[in-house]
């Protein structure tokens, strides 16, 4: 018996030929570069908004002074809360976007996201264990547990999914299976220990509210390392999209590429999940939306994801703060509510999305 139903064969994805690009390709690249510049401007604007907007209404000028001198009350708000929050959102959003793009490439599954490879499940299981068995209560305490859990479970998924012989279908299946089994454990712990449920339910939603500069600083190296690795792999992943044999012919080692890409994804998602809880949707939807603009070339796709994912993420966070003043709606809820309908509209309108 085979586990896979007959699937429609993937369309062959074009890979940029080596050497100088033809004229048409060049003009395309010009347009893509211009788009990327616009996206970057958008990102800067969203970051500014994220520092200016909050539960307490501060005029932009006061915010600016708060950044410069540290004596006043508003300075504390800006420096201790909004700035770290913006930094963390920037890091986490970038991480999730790149990781989603890479994951969809290595599993050849346009539906892959951090949830699929068991990363969220591993982080959740680790955090619930830390809360229930070790009585960890601080945000800073969760972070390392979440990271460890994400790393362990994604490594397990990789090994069960076939290790160096991993195929896309098997990776996805292993991730789903292990993820669901791990979530059962999370549920069991929550049911047997109400106190852990009380804390977990706030972590599970995904929020930036508890952000500290310290956390952002700790997360940055992981995100940088994972992100740079992923971007460096873009060409190899392009070759991999043609199938393993073709990739070998182009001088790319499929197994090594997949293993390194998995490691990068774990670093990225582990860091993001640890810092703000399991965020649904950013890693899944952003690469999809981007693909509609850039086409399947991963070099452009990942570059766009790097810039646009934090735009979506921070934008969602800002909106969550505005909508429910003086309280706030957690960013994980907002990404789902905002990204979701947009994604559905895209699927509905556009034949090429993910097909």
């Amino acid at each position: 018996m085979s586990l896979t139903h007959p699937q429609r064969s993937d369309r062959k994805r074009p890979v940029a030929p080596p050497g100088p690009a033809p004229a048409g390709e060049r003009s395309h690249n010009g347009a893509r570069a211009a788009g990327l510049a616009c996206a970057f401007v958008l990102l800067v604007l969203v970051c500014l908004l994220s520092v200016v907007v909050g539960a307490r209404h501060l005029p932009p000028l006061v915010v600016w002074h708060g950044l410069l001198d540290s004596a006043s009350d508003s300075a504390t708000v800006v420096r201790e809360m909004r700035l770290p929050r913006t930094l963390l959102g920037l890091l986490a959003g970038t991480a999730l976007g790149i990781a989603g793009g890479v994951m969809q490439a290595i599993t050849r599954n346009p539906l892959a996201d951090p949830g699929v490879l068991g990363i969220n499940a591993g982080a959740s299981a680790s955090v619930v264990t830390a809360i229930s068995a070790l009585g960890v209560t601080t945000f800073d305490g969760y972070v390392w547990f979440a990271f460890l859990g994400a790393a362990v479970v994604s490594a397990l998924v990789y090994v069960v999914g076939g290790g160096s012989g991993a195929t896309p279908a098997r990776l996805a299946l292993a991730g789903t299976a292990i993820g669901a089994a791990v979530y059962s454990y999370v549920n069991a712990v929550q049911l047997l220990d109400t106190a852990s449920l009380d804390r977990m339910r706030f972590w599970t939603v995904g929020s930036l509210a508890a952000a500290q500069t310290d956390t952002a600083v700790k997360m940055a190296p992981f995100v940088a390392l994972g992100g740079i690795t992923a971007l460096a792999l873009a060409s190899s992943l392009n070759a991999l999209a043609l199938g393993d044999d073709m990739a070998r012919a182009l001088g790319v080692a499929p197994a090594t590429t997949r293993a390194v890409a998995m490691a990068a994804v774990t670093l990225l998602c582990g860091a993001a999940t640890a810092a703000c809880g399991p965020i649904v949707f950013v890693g899944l939807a952003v690469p999809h939306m981007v693909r509609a603009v850039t086409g399947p070339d991963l070099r452009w796709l990942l570059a766009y994801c790097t810039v646009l994912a934090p735009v979506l993420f921070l934008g969602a966070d800002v909106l969550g703060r505005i909508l429910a003043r003086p309280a706030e709606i957690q960013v994980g809820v907002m990404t789902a509510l905002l990204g979701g309908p947009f994604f559905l509209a895209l699927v509905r309108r556009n034949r090429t999305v993910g097909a």
Partner: protein
Amino acid sequence: MRRTRVCVIRRGSWSLRFSRRALAAGMGCFLAALALGILVIGSGDYPMSAGDVLRTLAGGGTRPETFIVNNVRLPRVVTALLAGAALALAGAVFQTLTRNPLGSPDVLGFTQGATAGALLAIVVFGADSGALAGGAVLGGVATGGLIYAVVWPRGLHGYRLILVGIGTAAILTGFNGYLLTRAQITEAARATLWLTGNLNGRGWEDVLPLAVAMVVLVPLVLLGLGRPLRLLEMGEDTARVLGVRVERLRTALLVAAVLLTAFAAAAVGPVAFVALTAPHLARRLTRTPGPNLAVSLCMGAVLLVGADWVAQHAVPGRELPVGVVTGLLGGGYLVGLLAAERRAGRI
């Protein structure tokens, strides 16, 4: 491919065709489900032998036996049998429709829809179990309607259905998490228990809506839609040439599967993995291609009743929710299956 031996029953223009192996597998699962049911009825704080259980069911039990069996254990077992069967049948339909071995109600967002309905009932209206079940059915059906409305204009083919389902599931997951953070901790605990899926304290009032839904839907799916669905598996164009009205068939199947999922969730909560694993196991047993609807149905009943027995006995003195057991067992099974397939070099 070995030729499977086939039996055909004909009555005038009507005929029923099945492979012998599939029939044997289906009968085996059916009997196993009943046997497990008797075992579960007989186990607990007041143990009874299988003979006692059968005698009591036939109306010859002592007064305490009759009370325990008819009011406590029988409704619970019947709920497990029916909900397992309903989930598995829905799972088999979804997997065939989406042409994806992971196409289960959990992946497609229907489970999250039922969950959202139930959570709203608990958190916003502080509902009792009846309203909770109603909320679950409404939520599941509303989600089905939403997905259908989004997918419909371009046709319901499998890939788009999965994409839209996953998007919907993501939206609802966020929404559900938010509802949980807004609840009182006691309500959140109750909601989490329901979300995991459990059979504790199930009575006849939980069985009835599910039973009614199944009496209508199961024959419709098995007898009315089973054969065209098998043709649809050969590919859309082939099915059209053979006279299947593809869009209408997909719509009918989707509606039936959503209703089955919603009513099962209303009765026991969104139990993980039964919908996913039962069709896989059924396919392994029958070794016949195609949706294997009937065998999946019986297999689902076996799985949920078996999981309930494990849930009652795994931790001495504590009763686990059945959803924890199906999750662990189902996940373990899939991991084992992957390892086996890998050794056989089939994936």
